[in-house]
């Protein structure tokens, strides 16, 4: 035991000398987990680069999301074909529908140039209202903005397949298709 202690003492002394002689420029704080994850981006993972395109002005129809407001919120047909209207609790204002709130986020994302995020948000809304022609149209216009014309055309045609009861929207979609 004595020997060990002695040895330890000697070694500590050496180390102290060592540190005194060595100049450490930085003490990197990499032992925290956020540091441990640092290398995630480059080994074989393809990082999506969001195209920071500014050609939004090219499509005048893009900001027509207000069209949505005319559609009554949350009317989902039930099994027997009658229309199920969500009863609103005592709240005085009519609540915004889930897809309307997502469309607001979509507009923000588009305004910030985060087009892929905008597309992800529209898809989220589509999972809630898959037959909403406007959502498909919005996705088409985002893809068009990203320069992905053939994908945009696919979404626009899908939009058309749901828009028969809305001539104004049909016209908008056809206009978009014409530019692709």
């Amino acid at each position, binding site marked *: 035991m004595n020997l060990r202690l002695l040895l330890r003492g000697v070694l500590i002394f050496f*180390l102290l000398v*060592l540190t005194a002689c060595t100049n450490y420029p930085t003490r990197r704080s990499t*032992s925290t*987990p956020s540091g441990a994850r640092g290398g995630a981006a480059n080994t074989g993972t393809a990082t999506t680069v969001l195209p920071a395109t500014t050609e939004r002005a090219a499509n005048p129809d893009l900001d027509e999301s207000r069209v949505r407001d005319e559609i009554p919120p949350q009317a989902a047909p039930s099994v027997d074909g009658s229309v199920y209207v*969500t009863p609103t609790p005592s709240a005085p204002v009519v609540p915004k529908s*889930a897809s309307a709130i997502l469309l607001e986020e979509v507009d923000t994302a588009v305004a910030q140039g985060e087009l892929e995020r905008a597309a992800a948000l529209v898809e989220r809304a589509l999972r*809630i209202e898959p037959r909403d022609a406007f959502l498909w149209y919005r996705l088409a216009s985002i893809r068009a903005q990203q320069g992905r014309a053939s994908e945009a055309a696919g979404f626009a045609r899908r939009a058309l397949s*749901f828009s028969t009861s809305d001539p104004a929207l049909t016209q908008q979609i056809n206009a978009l298709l014409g530019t692709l």
Partner: protein
Amino acid sequence: MQVLDLDTPPFMPPKRSKRAWWPWLKRFVITSALIITVWCLWIDLTVRRDFNALQWALPARLYASPLELYAGAHLNQTDLTAYLQRLGYRDTPDITGPGEYQVSSTHVRLWTRGFEFWDGREPAVNFNVAFDQDRVRALFTDQSNDLPLVRLEPVEIAQINPDTGEDRLPMSLTQFPPALVNAVVAVEDQRFFSHFGVDPLGIMRALVANLRAGEIVQGGSTLTQQLIKNLYLTRQQTLRRKIEEALMAVSLDLHFSKEQILTAYLNEVFLGQEGNRAIHGFGLAAEYYFARPLAELSLGELALLAGLSQGASYYNPRRYPERALQRRDIVLSSLLAQEFITQPEYEQARTETLNISTRSSRQRRGYPAFMELVGKELAQDYDREALRTEGLRIFTTLDLRAQDTMEARLEDAVKAVERAAASTDAAHLEAAMVITDTITGEVRAIAGGRQRGYAGFNRALQAVRPIGSLAKPMVYLAALESGNYSLASVLSDTPISVPLGGGQQWSPRNYENKIYGDVYFYDALERSMNLATVHLGMRVGVDKVAEVMTRLGYEKTVSLYPSLLLGAIDMTPIEVAQMYQTLASNGFRSPLRAVAAVTSGDGTPLERYGIETSQVVDPTSMYLLEYALQGVFTRGTAEGMMGQLEAQMPLAGKTGTTNDLRDSWFAGYGDDLVGVVWLGYDDNRESGLTGASGALRVWTDVMGSLNIAPRRTQSLPDIVWHDVSATAVTDSRLRECQHLKSLPFKLQHPAESAVNCESSESLLQNILERVRGLGR
């Protein structure tokens, strides 16, 4: 002695011989000092280098598609609480923080944890959900503000572990609850913040204690030393190793802050073993033992975890709850003794009962059949190493409700149709099922066998079987697209021989050798007539049919044999699902996907796999085909299931049966989901089942339980409805317009005159016939 004396050099004084060892000692001391210095330097360098570069291999985590809450969502109270329980939420009478919920007679109140999704952060929210039977009626906060949409955290369904088997959820020091940090320091290394890496005082005390007890009862190693031991993973306990460890600890302490060392320790320490997965660090241990994040644990629970670091298997609370509790109480006493907690806190924590989460074996096995598809998709963009080490978060399209419901129903449903004669002890009727989203092409659920959680041969992805009559819709679609046929075209269901070359003939037959004669186009498809289909297909062209299959999403080459018309083409259930997906979405092909998005471990968005869609069939042809495929349920081979699916009607689909009843198929869809079922034997023996008597029944059971939504078909401007005679005839003189059948037609392609009951001539005849009918 004298002889020896002669040998000594005369000039050397005899007294000097006494000090002859001195230069040797000097040399020895200098050499060993040098060696030790180099050794120290080396150790010092190693420690600094290794600790600076410390990067844990973190497994990729896979998540099911998250639950979205909004007014109108299909969800009842039981579904919601079951989901919350899977997330480890606690049912408490009084909600105080995230991860808790409370059920009252009118609604469920919950406080979500928030989550970093690909498209942004979902904040933690405290709100109420009110239900209206099977739907969400409203979401509102305590201030009665309506919330439009809340996305819950996704359920983790699997992970891809590094080769070391180590798993952890690394956290920064500030993320660890202070009570946990105190407990660890109090029980493992009281003087952690004051010693220099090793603790001579602690060693002395341990030595005394051990001597007194006559055995090893106390260890004197510091947290720093334990960390070193863990990081370098050596089990050997030699003296040299111990000195090295001590040296490294000193070096670590010299170069890095106490906070850095403590953080590394809290994330590194081994705390449990599950199969070949090693649980490291307190972040993961909280999930593993309590199914909740560390931040949500009570003092008693934190003390229990802190106690585990001394011997995770010895104190394993699942196996030895008594020991674990005793250990927890020791930790609590040291916390009290060192005044980290007060007496009342101590008393309260001691009364806590052990609340270890139960992890069912099924949950641990995950969903292997679905995971195989996920793995295949990920392999296109990520190499194996990245998935095992970078802590990626993978968001899949799995719908837990669909997958669990399917697994819960499948085995019994298969058993119900299994023919005792065909099955033996060694061979059971097997099954595969794929459920996809009609609109987006997202794969919702996969079963690779009839057994729940089955992890063997994945029939959904790998079993290639002839598809039989599932090929017929493609024949009829090719015919409709050609412009030469309408639903009212009259086909001839009569024997046919097709020359195959080399003098060979192919002479197909109908099921049970029936011959139907003149039949309507729609009727031949609905009732799956082989002869009529071959007549039609030979006219339209086998190549056209093959081309339709490719267009619908079948990716392999199709061999152009006439037998293709009756489905002599081998496909896997998922390949069938892709083709029927396109039919279900009215001619829009969307590639099936199981992976939606990938982020890094801290939520930075990486790849996203969004919806793609392209229109591959014109809407009018699709409209007409849909009419016949809905007719399969109302008039055709699936008619028997009408009663059970009454609430879901209309639905569309097609039965498939292969030669000698070896394979039984059904592919069908509603407005929301597409389902494909295959039944058969692995050794390809006869199952004795047709598509209708086997797969259809299983399909009905599962899809009915999932409450599949009825088809909604939108009318099209170039579709018109006309009345035709109820019976199909080719000779207009035999036209019979007493009984009428209303069918949709393409505007430019009306009914043939032989059956058209709307021309003026036939109208007159119609009236005459009605009069005659009255007179009878």
